[in-house]
């Protein structure tokens, strides 16, 4: 079993870990303590102190609201998207690139999809404007609820960490 220091995990999250250690992480059995250390790294980098339950995207977390103890989906800027079981995208802002002109803003001519076939849906945080996701479906496609984690099983049976209180 491999083991890494908190400092190495910090560098990993920053994208600055040396290649030799990165290779070791890739090729050796996984370090079981990574999740706990990962949470510590992320928690220290955020402007808010609600407890992170599970990171779900580069700037999105399932977090425990420290006042209500409800688990919510939360942006790194602090904006809350509501109950963690609901699809956060429905509470976001969306910009749909469904015309050639809108596609032309992000790709050279001929290197973007034809919007009669495919559109790009960019989901933004209403508060800070971070682009959390780019969907690339056909027109009409339902907004995809990408991830419904089984957090209880994960904490209790997989990583054996105390499950934070949940009010909702």
């Amino acid at each position: 079993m491999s083991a890494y220091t908190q400092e190495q995990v910090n560098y990993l999250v920053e994208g600055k870990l040396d290649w030799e250690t990165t290779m070791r992480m890739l090729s050796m059995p996984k370090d079981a303590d990574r999740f706990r250390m990962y949470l510590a790294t992320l928690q220290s980098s955020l402007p808010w102190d609600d407890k992170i339950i599970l990171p779900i995207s580069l700037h999105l977390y399932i977090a425990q609201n420290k006042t209500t103890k409800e688990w919510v989906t939360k942006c790194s800027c602090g904006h809350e998207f509501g109950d963690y079981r609901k699809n956060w995208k429905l509470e976001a802002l969306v910009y749909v690139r469904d015309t050639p002109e809108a596609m032309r803003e992000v790709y050279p001519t001929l290197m973007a999809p034809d919007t009669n076939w495919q559109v790009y849906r960019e989901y933004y945080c209403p508060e800070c404007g971070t682009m959390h996701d780019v969907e690339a479906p056909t027109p009409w496609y339902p907004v995809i609820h990408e991830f419904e984690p089984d957090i209880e099983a994960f904490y209790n049976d997989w990583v054996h960490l105390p499950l934070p209180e949940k009010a909702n």
Partner: protein
Amino acid sequence: MNKMSRNESGWPDLLGNGKTLKQHRDEVLARTKETGFYNGLERLEFKEADPITYEKLFSRIRGGLVHARETAKKIAASPIVEQEGELCFTLYNAAGDCILTSTGIIIHVGTMGAAIKYMIENAWETNPGINHGDMFTNNDCSIGNVHPCDICTIVPIFWEGKLVGWVGGVTHVIDLGAMTPGSMSSGQVSRFGDGLQVTCRKTGINDTPLRDWLHESQRNVRTAKYWILDERTRIAGCHMIRKLVEEVLEAEGIENYTKFAHEVIEEGRRGLQLRLKAMTVPGIYRRVSFVDVPYAHDDMSLASAFGKMNSIMHAPCEMTIRPDATWKLNFEGASRWGWHSYNANQVAFTSGIWVMLTQTLVPTARINDGAYYATEFRIPKGTWMNPDDRRTAHANAWHFLVSAWSGIWRGMSQSFYARGYLEEVNAGNANACNWLQGGGINQDGEVHAVNNFETAACGTGACAIKDGLNHNAAVWNPEGDMGDIEIWEMAEPLLYMGRNVKTNSGGYGKFRGGCGFETLRMVWKAQDWTMFFSGNGYMNSDWGLMGGYPSATGYRFEAHKTDLEARIRDGMSLPLGADRNPQNTQYERHISATAEVKRDKQCTTTEAIFENHDLYLNYLRGGPGFGDPIDRDCASVEKDLNSHFVLPEFAEKVYGVVISNDQDDVWVVDVAKTAERRKKIRKERIARALPTRDWMKEERERIITKHASVQVRHMFATSFDLSVKFKNEFKAFWDLPADWELLESELGVPSFGSKYRMDLSKLPDVRTVTLVEE
């Protein structure tokens, strides 16, 4: 009462226990189902009792498989095999379950196993018979093969008169006599244009290929020379491995070998579950991908009018990882198979997933059918990845296979990210294409066909800690290589006028996708020559991850009547190097002003005539990006600009950098101004966007009024027809009226296959093998 023995009744007792091969396989399956352990192996007794011998067996066999592959491929002349390594060898137990495999295109772990299982199910031991020294050849897509150009040779292994297993070897041949040249042709609407297809045919006895097979097969393909050497490659590898197994049996005994041949599969099954628990998060993951089938175009010549339409292939993926670390991959909602050559058999679809997972979840040499037994697949019958009609064409199944799996990539990566294993995150891969194909009379005056495998080196997806790799790999062949120019120029009558990184092809992101590359080819010393394009253009199959963009889509460039012969003779300028910015065309400045140029998004075409000195751009795609592009550090964007990985216009617009070009033509990013610009971009985003629920009201109206292109409506109509669940979920999401329906019959396009279909199982004396929940 006297009873006839198996032998006397026409059933050879191959296993030496009085059971037929099917009875044996059925018992293995029953014990597996009953206990949840492969073949009922709750304990790995041999491994536990004698781990050293067990590991010795593993290492010796695995090493032998890899050695056989590396040695045998030197026999091949085809650059697809010899340069790109498009071959693999796999060892099976008597039930046809994979024990171990070599490196290479390991999708064929499952496809060759499916062929063996087909022989077992259909009593091959009685007719045509299974004996020591036999060889069987299979490339039949209706029983599991990916596409007909993957030819496999299967050799039974006997020990002291009893069947103890099988070895299979596969190579991807350059041509197999489809209606158009090249191994992955488009334009045929059914199996009957896919080329030579052989169903587990006995093609050799006493270790010697049969002469009728040799004569018949060689004249049914265009590239006979490569065909012969490819077959010798497969036979040599199989015989090397058979000899190895015989040596192992001599040294370790049949009892240990038999135990090993089953325990290692159960170990593989457990191994996958352990990895799931060690690396992922339990839960439900949903993703989807698509690919375009743009057949309503003048450059798609079809012999059958009912295939002449635009359509979209649809692959929704729901991945469920349960608390007990079992898992299920569900593709309900996929669209129906179509009248094109992009259909796939259920085994091709499921087996290919292991190619991908060995690069992330199970990066181990112990990949075998244990992983299959650890996975539940749901693939409804009638979908493009599990057709219910025996006419379907599969020659270019990779058109969508590669990206249909991308949903699993992204779901897995979500899981790795949540768990903190950022080093494993991969936003996806390029939809590996274009496939440059064609044929005619080559520079040596021979009938010839080409399928250029530069596409084995596309851009890879971005990771959560670094950029994707440029022009490096393809998901279907983890050892991908673009091949040497000098070799391709020997194999193809096409000179290289350029080979460069494809600017702006990698998906934008905090970490960008790897860029693809492009090669400009000029036809040279060919006669009666044709070529065509094969790739995605109107759609992008691989999405970005967590705010990253998909990679750029494909486009087509070809030029005819270029006058390059005269320009070369007169020492005039020539089109060389990259097509760096397709909106600022350069090639056209160095060919005749009256040249016929095609620049468009029609990246799938059928055979077009190419004269000597005509041009063809082979654009190999980039990979998708990870994370919001305005999080990308300025130094990386600067490096991208100066390496021609991104065009300045899009560095400014997408990455939000403020740049200048100094006196040495070096791009410089102003960090302070960029920070200010990025703040504005955030505000611009908020200003131009709508609350998602408001936008949904607008989109709902478009659905109510059925406002969408025919291909979009056709995709949904075929998915609805195959899955009531998918239709009901769609209607519930958009809150559509109960009587809202979308039927194929209302679209005004041909609907052959929508009502009347005939499955392979309806043929007489055929027992098909089903390996998924349908």
